[in-house]
Each structure stands twice: as structure tokens, then as C-alpha cells.
């Protein structure tokens, strides 16, 4: 039975920082620069075939190095199992987009940009998705207060279209 964690460790030994299990789902934490080749390998390797990107989301640990974590939750129909790939980023670092591997990543990365402020390199269309385009700030960051930062919600009529 193919084990994705073992496969990644063998094929990308320099990239793996940690591995473990979260209540039934195995994960590896890898170097952010290697995310594209690692995910491509997980998807295309016949024995693994993680062809579905179930979810792509961010976590803000508040402060310090590796403050931001991005999780890629994958599912393989062939193996009928899930696998999680994590990367950690510092303030200001820009992760690589995987929208060219899974179309579904497009909107999910936009949501991470919108709510956390992480810019994805090579993203085809990086703009806010849930909040208004003029919004300033990234609310899911731990330093953004849950009551709001007091900035007024601006309502304006759009210009006439073409």
C-alpha cells in the first residue's frame, strides 16, 4: 500500500521538515518553495493519485517565525484516503500558487489572500473574493479584532459599465 508520507520523504528528502498524523489524517510539513513539485508529484504519481484537492486553507499562529500555515488537504480516489501537506511562511513571504495543478485552488487561494493577506505568486487572478474590493485589512489574522477595526463600510455606486 503506497504511503504518501514515505514517498515524499524519499523523493524530496531536503524538503520535508516534519510529518505526523492528525486524528486519522497523515500530514507532512514541507518547505514552502517546494510546494509545487511536491503537490504535482502527489497528484501525478500513479500509485498515489491524489487527484482531488479537497481543501486549501490558512492558519495564523499569531506571531513569530512561521506565523502563517497553509494546509493542502488532498484526497485520492485510488487509495481512498486523505493526506495533508502543510507549509509555514513568515510575515511578508509569498507562497506559490497551485491553480495550474487544480482549478479549484484558484478561488481557495483568493480567499486566503482576502482574509490573511498572503499573496500567491503566479496566481492568474489574485483579488479579494468575499470582502469588498476596497476593504483594507485581512480579518482572519490574529491581530485583526473580531469586533472590527472601526473603518467605515463604504457604499458607493459603481461607474457605468462599458
Amino acid at each position, binding site marked *: 500500500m503506497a504511503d504518501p508520507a514515505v514517498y515524499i520523504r524519499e523523493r524530496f528528502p531536503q524538503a520535508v521538515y516534519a510529518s505526523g498524523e492528525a*486524528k486519522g489524517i497523515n500530514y507532512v510539513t514541507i518547505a514552502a518553495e517546494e510546494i509545487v513539485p511536491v503537490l504535482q508529484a502527489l497528484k501525478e504519481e500513479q500509485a498515489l493519485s491524489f*487527484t482531488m484537492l479537497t*481543501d486549501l486553507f490558512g492558519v495564523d499562529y499569531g506571531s513569530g517565525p512561521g506565523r502563517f500555515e497553509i494546509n493542502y488537504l488532498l484526497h485520492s480516489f485510488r487509495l481512498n484516503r486523505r493526506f495533508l501537506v502543510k507549509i509555514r511562511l513568515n510575515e511578508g513571504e509569498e507562497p506559490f500558487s497551485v491553480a495550474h495543478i487544480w*482549478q479549484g485552488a484558484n*478561488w481557495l487561494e483568493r480567499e486566503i489572500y482576502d482574509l490573511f493577506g498572503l499573496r500567491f505568486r503566479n496566481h492568474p487572478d489574485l483579488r479579494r473574493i468575499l470582502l*469588498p474590493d476596497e476593504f483594507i485589512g485581512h480579518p482572519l489574522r490574529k491581530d485583526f479584532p473580531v469586533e472590527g477595526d472601526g473603518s467605515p463600510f463604504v457604499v458607493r455606486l459603481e461607474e457605468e*459599465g462599458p
Partner: protein
Amino acid sequence: MNESRLMTINMGPQHPATHGVLRLLLELDGEVIVKATPHLGYLHRGIEKLAESFTYNQVLPLTDRLDYTSALGNNLAYCLAVEKLLGISVPKRAQYLRVLLAELQRIAAHLLWLATHALDIGAMTMLFYCFREREEVLAVLEEATGARLTPSYIRVGGLARDVPPSFFTLARKFVDRFPQRIDEYETMLTKNIIWKKRTQGIAPLSAADAINYGVTGPVLRASGVNYDLRKAYPYSSYEDFDFEVPLGKNGDVYDRYLVRIIELRQSNRIVIQALENLPEGPVLSDAPLITPPDKEEVGKDIAALIRHFKIAAEGYTPPVGEAYGAIESPKGELGFYVISDGGNKPFRMRIRPPSFINLSALPKMIEGELVADVVAAIGSLDIVLGEIDR
């Protein structure tokens, strides 16, 4: 192509056929859609951010308001994640009741979908037929939970309370009559030439594209991919139940309709099995620090009073860790990824929103198609903005 030849039409956010506050910008070349750009966020309430300030039990009523057509399902997905974090198991009776309620809720959600989808396409009669049944289902759910749309009944550790005996009478009455009602719906639509002309071959999505976009639920299965979490990653004793998962072939609007109709029949089957095989026993885990005591005890026994107070005021503290709990909701794979830092509030609660991810495939489905088919395509996706925007 000359830019000025394209006409931009705005659909929404107020529109009867967008099923919520969805705004679609459509660029048309005549009647053909060249580009479709969804604009979201009109119902964004910051539920994921709020969850970080609420105790685990306080978060539960927020989940009712995600996919508001299928509230019990949302409760269940959240509770599965938190129960995994806590490492507690739920008694069999509670698991069977959860399945029973989740499938009744699936019936209610699909009835609402069918009613509004058919109405958008022009078959207004379906609205009245389906809502007649939906009222009956909501009455059954109200008998157990006390509410029609915001039950907050599936709790961490089991259920809020056991169902009253009247629930079984009502539920039985419903499931005995429901298959004939589904026959009525099929008589009106399935072989109806107008329905077929409006839905066959419309807004197709190939299996490969569906997987690439991360689409789940009836839309994925209509494209021919056999992925149903109740079979792939069974939860809450679904493995004890006998039911089929329908698959489509062409991935068009008609196939999505057929898949959901068959799911209605299968859900009815599951509810009958749950009613017949329901075990006796408690409906809450034996975990005194997590589940509250009986209300009668709280009035009589000081220890129960203290326990109740502590759980209501402070809550409980799952060990540090992360867990993913997912269900097959009527819309697709609804998952909650909950991260605990050892405190009494979730450190991070991520909601994997099936409608959001399914909606991302909409431009692929309608670009190159006629504008008249947009309404049928949106209806066939069965999106709920509460879940998309959170």
C-alpha cells in the same frame, strides 16, 4: 474580438433565480456567454473569525446558519470534528438518530432545491408540491428539535435531548407516503419533453473537470464519479445502512436532477431503516466534563448544578491538536477542520464549503453556452449563499 461588441449584463445580487445574494457579471456576444464572473461576499458574516471568540458549544448555533436549508447536517459535521478532537465516542442510539435526522434533512434540502430549480425553469407547480412535503418534514424535525430552520440539536457528545415518542409517529407517517410523492414529481418532470429540452445537454461538466475543480456531491456524481462520503469515509454508523449511490453519465443539468431524485428515494430508505433498527440507550456520551447533565438533575442535585454551570460558562478544553470532520451534505463534502490550542475556544475553525467550491466550476459550465441556460445551470448546482460566504 472587438471589446465593444460584448455586452455586459449584471445578474444579482438581488435576483429571484440566483438562490441567494449572488452577483454574476455576464459578458455576452449576442446570446452566447463569453465570460462569467461571480462576485461573492454579500452574505459574509465572518463565522470563521467569530468561532475563535466563542466556546465550542457557543459555536454550534453559528453552524445552523451556514447551509440554512440543511442545518442539522452542519451541526453534525461540526460535532464530528470536535468529537474527534476530544477523543469521545457517541452512543449508538445517538448515531442512528443522527443518521435519521440527517437524511430527513437531506430530503428537506433536496425538496427545496427541486421546488426552486423547477420554478426557475418555469414549472411553478413543483414549488407547491415540494413545499407541501417540506412542510411535513419540517414539522417532523420540529417535533424533535423544537425548531424548523435553526435546530442546534446535534450537540458535541450526542444530541441535545432524546426524541419524544410523537416524533416516531410523525416520521413514520411521512416516510410511508413519501415514495408516492416522489413518483408524482417524476411524473411531472422526468419524461416531460419541455423539461428535457431545457435540461439535457445543458451546462455539462466532465468528470475530469469536476475533480479538478474539487466539485463534490450530486454534481460530481452526475458527472460519473463515484464519491459519496457516506460510503468512502463512513461516519455515524452509516456503514450499518443499506442504500445506493446514484451516478450520472453526461454531467448535464438533467443528470443532476435525476441523481437528486434518486437520492430522495434512497434517503427515504435510510430513514425507514433507522426507524426500524433504532437501538435503546443514552443519547449523550458518558463524558461528565463535556456533556451536560439531565435538566431534572440540575434542579435537585448540587453536583449536577455545578457541572452544568461549568460546562455552560467555561466550556471544555480539548487537548492540543487538529481534526477534520466531514459529512456528505446535500450540497457535497461539508468539512470542519478544527484546531485546538488547549483552550476552551477553537483556535481556528475552517469550514470546507461545498457550495463555494462547486460554484467555482460555474464559469466553466456556462462559458460558451446561451444566456437563457444560466438559470438552469445555477439551479442545478444547488448553491446556498450562507455556506459560500460564511
